Structure formats: structure tokens, C-alpha cells
């Protein structure tokens, strides 16, 4: 399952069209498709194969919003009934007035930009991904908030789990060593604020480029010391 190359272990990479197994044996997860009774990979990605279950985690690809995703968005337009956000995907996200603001808003007297204005950065959640690329966002969840100051960096969305690490171990390591606050969006947008932003950004970029190797944690620790 794992190829050892020099001292770096590399996970097994699957290619689109590669036969993974029989649909009679395995249940299928993300990144696979079935033709006849055979399971194939859809992506260049890491193959996860257990006794009953197969999936392929793609190593690249643009962000496709799923409900409950916690993401970072940037307000692009303020409209009468809500805001349109850039969420780093092929579609924009829409935050309605009712999902953005807790109180009642009298539009005759109050301009919605008082709540969110063009350029504001928010940590938000995907409420619904409706047909035809209609992505509905919500701020009515404990983690949602406006992010002030800081800078945004983009990474490949599929690398986000690696940046976060087991129970947040990787991102916490970076935060500690650089004295920064970091919010990681599942859409590949990462918000960094604090003292050593440059160092934090270097570490984040390294993870983006080398997410497929083991021993990455040690390399990051070295970089940050």
C-alpha cells in the first residue's frame, strides 16, 4: 500500500480510470465511480482502501462547496437582500440578510453594508448547495465571525486536512511558533494575523507543496524553529 522511496514514504497514488476493485466487495466513497461491477478512480489521488471501503482523495482540484463546510469568504457585492461572496470556487456564495444578521433589519432606514461591506472577510458556513450552483451561506453558527485585518493565502483545497493535522496538531504548531491566529477554510482560503505572518505563510505554503510525504511535521518544525 505504501511505496518507500529513500527515506520518504509516499502513499499509493491512484490515476483516473485505474481499476480499484469490485463493487461486490467494497463500498465506494469519494473519488470513485462504478461501471458494471467494477470500481474505478476518478482522480490523481491517494487511494484509501480498507477491508470494506474504498475512496480516492484527490491531490488537486478546485473547491466544490458541500453543506456544513466551514469556509472563508470575501464580500464582493452588497445587495439589497444580502451579500455575494468570493468563496474560491467556480460559484459565488450568497449570504442572505436573514442568515447574516440576527436582528430585524429595516431596509428603509438601514444600509446592509453596515453589517458586511465589500472587502470584508468572514469565517462562515455553507448552509445549502442548491442545484445549478446556488451556494447559500450562513453566519448563524458559533464559529462564524468577521475577520479583521490579517492576510489571506490560498492553498489547494484538498490539502486543507493536512494543514489542520490530527486534531489540529499541525496548524496549532504553526500558530504557537509564529504567534499568529490562523483560520483555515475548507475552501482552501487561509486567514493569518499576528506577529510573524511571513513565517506562518512560508510554513503553510510548504504544506501545500509537500502534503503527500510523511515526515512533513518534522520538516515544518525545522522550518519554524
Amino acid at each position, binding site marked *: 500500500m505504501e511505496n518507500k522511496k529513500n527515506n520518504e514514504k509516499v502513499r499509493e497514488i491512484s490515476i483516473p480510470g485505474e481499476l480499484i476493485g469490485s463493487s461486490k466487495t467494497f463500498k465506494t466513497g469519494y473519488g470513485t465511480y462504478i461501471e458494471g461491477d467494477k470500481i474505478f478512480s476518478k482522480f490523481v489521488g491517494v487511494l484509501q482502501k480498507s477491508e470494506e471501503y474504498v475512496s480516492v482523495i484527490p491531490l488537486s482540484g478546485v473547491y466544490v462547496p458541500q453543506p456544513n463546510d466551514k469556509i472563508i469568504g470575501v464580500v464582493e457585492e452588497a445587495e439589497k437582500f444580502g451579500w455575494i461572496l468570493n468563496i474560491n470556487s467556480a460559484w459565488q456564495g450568497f449570504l442572505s440578510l436573514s442568515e447574516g444578521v440576527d436582528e430585524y433589519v429595516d431596509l428603509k432606514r438601514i444600509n446592509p453594508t453596515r453589517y458586511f461591506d465589500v472587502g470584508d*472577510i468572514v469565517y462562515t458556513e455553507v448552509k445549502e448547495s442548491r442545484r445549478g450552483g446556488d451556494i447559500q451561506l450562513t453566519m448563524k453558527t458559533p464559529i462564524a465571525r468577521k475577520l479583521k485585518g490579517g492576510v489571506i493565502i490560498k492553498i489547494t483545497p484538498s490539502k486543507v486536512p493536512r494543514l489542520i493535522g490530527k486534531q489540529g496538531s499541525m496548524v496549532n504548531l504553526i500558530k504557537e511558533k509564529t504567534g499568529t491566529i490562523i483560520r483555515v477554510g475548507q475552501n482552501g482560503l487561509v486567514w493569518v494575523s499576528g506577529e510573524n505572518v511571513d513565517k506562518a505563510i512560508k510554513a503553510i505554503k510548504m504544506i501545500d507543496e509537500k502534503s503527500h510525504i510523511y515526515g512533513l511535521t518534522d520538516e515544518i518544525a525545522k522550518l519554524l524553529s
Partner: protein
Amino acid sequence: MRADYILKLLEKDERLDGRKLDQFREISIEKNIIATAEGSAKVKLGKTEVIVGVKMNFGEPFPDTPDAGVLRTEAELMPMAHPDFTSGPPGEDATEIARVIDRGIRESESIDVEKLCITKGEKVWSVFVDFYPINHDGNLIDAGSLAAIVALKNTRIPELDKEGKIDREKLKNPLPVMHFPLMITVGKVGNKMIIDPTFEEEQVLDSKLSIAVTEEGKVVAMQKSGSVGLTDDDVDNMIDIAVKKSKELRKLIEDGKKTSK
């Protein structure tokens, strides 16, 4: 938000990639990379990558210079090089880049076009210089100018066969290139001057001045772009920077390019 961050850094004389304000990114130059061209070069400035190919064909001389060859520079901003580029005929940006690159070469009389005459008044060599950005991370003009002059310096003129037709299998005499101008673009933002801007840095510049300097230290072409005006002190300062940096760049190239064939 990125723009603000870049501006904040610049105020402290810092840049996103840790460079000094007057520092080039890593430069690499490869010549003769296109087998089907009479001359070619690939230049990388950091992540910016461009290719210039030189082709020679028969052409008609301009009426006022009947015994001189013709130089023509074109640029296509291929949509592959940046997500914001779209297909279609060259817009004002592509045209400007082509003309600025052309100016640096033409005005310095870098090519001895009188040696390119075949039959006076009728037939001369046309030298086509075509610029293609492969990846755009800022400073296409400097990268393109450098690639153009390296490509021209490595261009060889095809021989003519017995019937007077072009035989590109036989490339013989080098194109007569007399000078080696280098273009340095200096960007102004607030009261800071930077060279070799990345794509993101270009978005925050107030103005840019591109200056071509020959190996003799002569200024042979200039082009200002951007919507904010420059004071005469600014321009003096930018010329000094360009002269200094072109010397440095020239030395870098002569000391052995990072990768060259």
C-alpha cells in the same frame, strides 16, 4: 486584503517574498529552445516565464528605407499564462508590451538592418520577433525584452538555395546584432521604488517606468505606464536605478546564465 498587506510591507521596505526593493528574482535564461525557429530564448524571472521566437522571411522594404531589412515585434498574451487572460486578438496591453520591447531593440539600432538587404527596393529580410508568456507573475516587459535580445543574438540567417528560395535546414550567418540593450522596469508605489514586481505587486503600483539601457550605458527607450503622474525627481531616480540595475543584470548574464544551452 492582500493589497493592503503588500503596501504595509513596502512601507517597511519589505516584500512578500523577502526581497529587497531593488532586488531581482531568480533569473534563468535558455537559448535556442525552439528547434523550428531561427533564433529563440526562454527567460524566467521568478515564476514569470516567457518565450521569444525569431523567424526570418522575405519581405518588402519600407519605401523610405529601400535597402534596409524590416523588424517586427508581436506579442500574444496567451490565456494559458494567467486566469484573467481571455482569448482573442491582442488588446492594448499586449500591443503595448510588443511595442515597448520593439522600441528597446529598434531605437538602439541593435540590429544592423542594412546588412539584411537582398535586392534593394524589392526584397529584404523580415525579422519577426514573437513574444509568448507561458506564466505571468509580473514584469512581462523586462522578461520579454531580455528574451528578445538573447533570441536575436542567437539568430542565424537561413541560406538561399540555387533557386533563391529559403533553406532553413542551412542556418549560417548570425544576425548582425550590434548592441545588447536591457530593459529595466521601475515601479513607484507611495514614495517607494521597486524593481521586478510580481503580478500582485503590479496591481498596487501607482506608476511604472520601463527604461532600456545599452552596454554603453546609453538610454535608448522609455515607456511610462500607470495612471499616477511622476515628478522629475522620480524620473531621475528611476533612470539611475535602471542604469545601475542593467549593469548588474549584464554582469549576471555574462558570468554565466543560471541554465544555458
